[in-house]
């Protein structure tokens, strides 16, 4: 009888605790749906054509849009990609194909360290390197800051996908008399291209929403930026400034900008995963 009661108690505890873990998962996932839902609702009712085509209205006036911030973000991300992706990509080729294990360890360690550096610290770094010496904020500096953040993500995942290419492919190419770099360029990289593309897209999505590194590099701009050497507006910084402002209409536009930014990032993430999962691909580590 006592045994039975104890067994029942243990079973009750088991079911209770397992239900609790399910509840935890439910809470965590429902937060996502809540966030998405609230943002889509608020952003969706706030967004209009002006948002994409007009400059910000003067302080206190209603209306206007964020056309300059959209263009600014595009320019910053272009610069970041041009700077960060080649370093990550070719660095990964060196690690996977040429490097001795000691050098590879050092480079990997540096990349992991770089990946963990808080984004605000990257901002300070870009400021001391690309703003302070020139005495003015610029689009270049912002792009540089974001580019630095793209390097470790691109490097580490590209390397993993390169290492995942079957040995037999390499040996086949070499047996046909191809030199090493020819093997890499015509066999190994094409075999891993899905993975590499995914890595680049995820790195891109990661920095697309970064705000802290832009605060004192690209700064912000209420007008069109007059060139790459000028400060520029960007969507994340606009969200930050508008959300903290006292104006109702700016809050509305912050929501709209949030929706546009989140949609961009989630779409890139989903596309990246779809590319990876379609067809044969290298095993994910």
């Amino acid at each position, binding site marked *: 009888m006592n045994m039975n009661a104890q067994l029942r108690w*243990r079973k009750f505890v*088991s079911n209770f605790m*397992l239900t609790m*873990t*399910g*509840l*935890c*998962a439910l809470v*965590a*996932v429902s*937060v*996502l749906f809540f*966030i998405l839902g*609230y*943002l889509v609702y608020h952003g969706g009712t706030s967004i209009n054509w002006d948002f994409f085509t007009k400059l910000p209205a003067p302080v206190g006036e209603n209306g206007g849009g964020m056309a300059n911030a959209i263009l600014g973000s595009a320019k910053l991300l272009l610069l970041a990609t041009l700077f960060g992706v*080649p*370093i990550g990509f*070719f*660095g990964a*080729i*060196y690690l996977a194909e*040429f490097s001795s294990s000691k050098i590879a360890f050092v*480079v990997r360690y*540096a*990349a992991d*360290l*770089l990946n*963990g*550096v*808080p*984004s*605000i*610290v990257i*901002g*300070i*770094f870009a400021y001391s390197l690309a703003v302070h010496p020139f005495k003015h904020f610029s689009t270049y500096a912002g792009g540089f800051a974001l580019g630095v953040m793209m*390097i470790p993500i691109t490097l580490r995942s590209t390397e993993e996908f390169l290492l995942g290419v079957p040995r037999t492919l*390499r*040996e086949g190419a070499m047996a046909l008399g191809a*030199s*090493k*770099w*020819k093997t890499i360029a015509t066999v190994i990289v094409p075999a891993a291209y899905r993975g590499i593309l995914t890595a680049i897209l995820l790195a891109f*999505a*990661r920095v*697309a*929403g*970064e*705000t*802290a590194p832009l*605060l004192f590099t690209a700064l912000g701009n209420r007008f069109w930026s007059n060139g790459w050497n000028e400060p520029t507006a960007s969507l*994340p910084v606009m*969200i*930050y400034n508008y*959300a903290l402002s006292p104006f109702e209409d700016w809050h509305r536009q912050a929501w709209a900008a*949030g929706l546009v*930014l*989140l949609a961009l990032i*989630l779409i890139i993430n*989903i596309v990246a995963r779809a590319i990876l999962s379609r067809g044969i691909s290298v095993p994910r580590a």
Partner: protein
Amino acid sequence: MATTSTTVPSAGPVVGSRSFLSRLREGDEIARLITFLFAASVVLITLLIVYELWQGSVLPRHKFGFAFFRTSVWDPNFEQFGALPFIFGTLVTSAVALFIAVPLGIGAAIFLAELAPARLSDALEFFIDLLAAVPSVIYGLLGIFIVVPVMRDVIQPALKNSLGFIPLFKGPAFGIGFLTAGVVLAIMVIPYIISVSREILLSVPRDQREAALALGSTRWESTWKVVVPFARTGIMGSIFLALARALGETMAVTMVIGNTPAIAASLFSPGDSIASVIANQFTEATGELYTQSLIELGLVLFLLTFILNGLARLLIVVTSQRGGAARA
């Protein structure tokens, strides 16, 4: 058949047997050199960050020494810079975040790894990965317009009425402050905890579970007394990873913490953190000492996250290797 190794692409070990000249002609050495420069630049950039932070904070390091970390006056007008309130704010908000996120995140990870059918688990993991991709400024936006009002009108009054005798929950409820920043941080780091812990739990060998069940334990007992202890170090790693993120998080915290340097017993009090003070004051900092004090705060943040990330990675590697070894 040519006999020189210059014309025959290696019969033996694939690379080593060809002469340097032939590899140069075929472009291998050039490719190696070029890719090496790119790889080396990663190391260079990392070293340069450390150098710039160190070099950029010479003045306050010499002027204040360790007093920088012990004093709590932050007054740019009189060139007095003490970092204690910011360090306090960073630690308190991170502690609140972990207090909420750890039980919730590990609970959810246990559900996904042990209980949920594989398809449901993978589908939920997909959503959780997306949650991890949401930029922090959007969490800040939601923090200002959802979390702050809810904290001010519902949660803080409720805490005050029930637990108000504890100093932690005393004082006026502004909505903004340490507690709110901690809650927003918790929402941000939960996906990381779930994602890494789930991966670690899934790497625990099947025999461990089966042995426990065969001995008559219930499903929960096998999970809690066998699987979780097996994965303990890795789960600790995921918590350190989350802590490193929480310490360095800037935008979401800056938007809800209140931006007043303060050391207060009450979690309802507005405060400031290392990252948020840098974000707020860096562009308007006038004078070398002011700017350099902010850079020194950046150095502190860098070192904190460096240590935590290193520990986290070590713990995760150790656990997954143990799981792998036991499986083999």
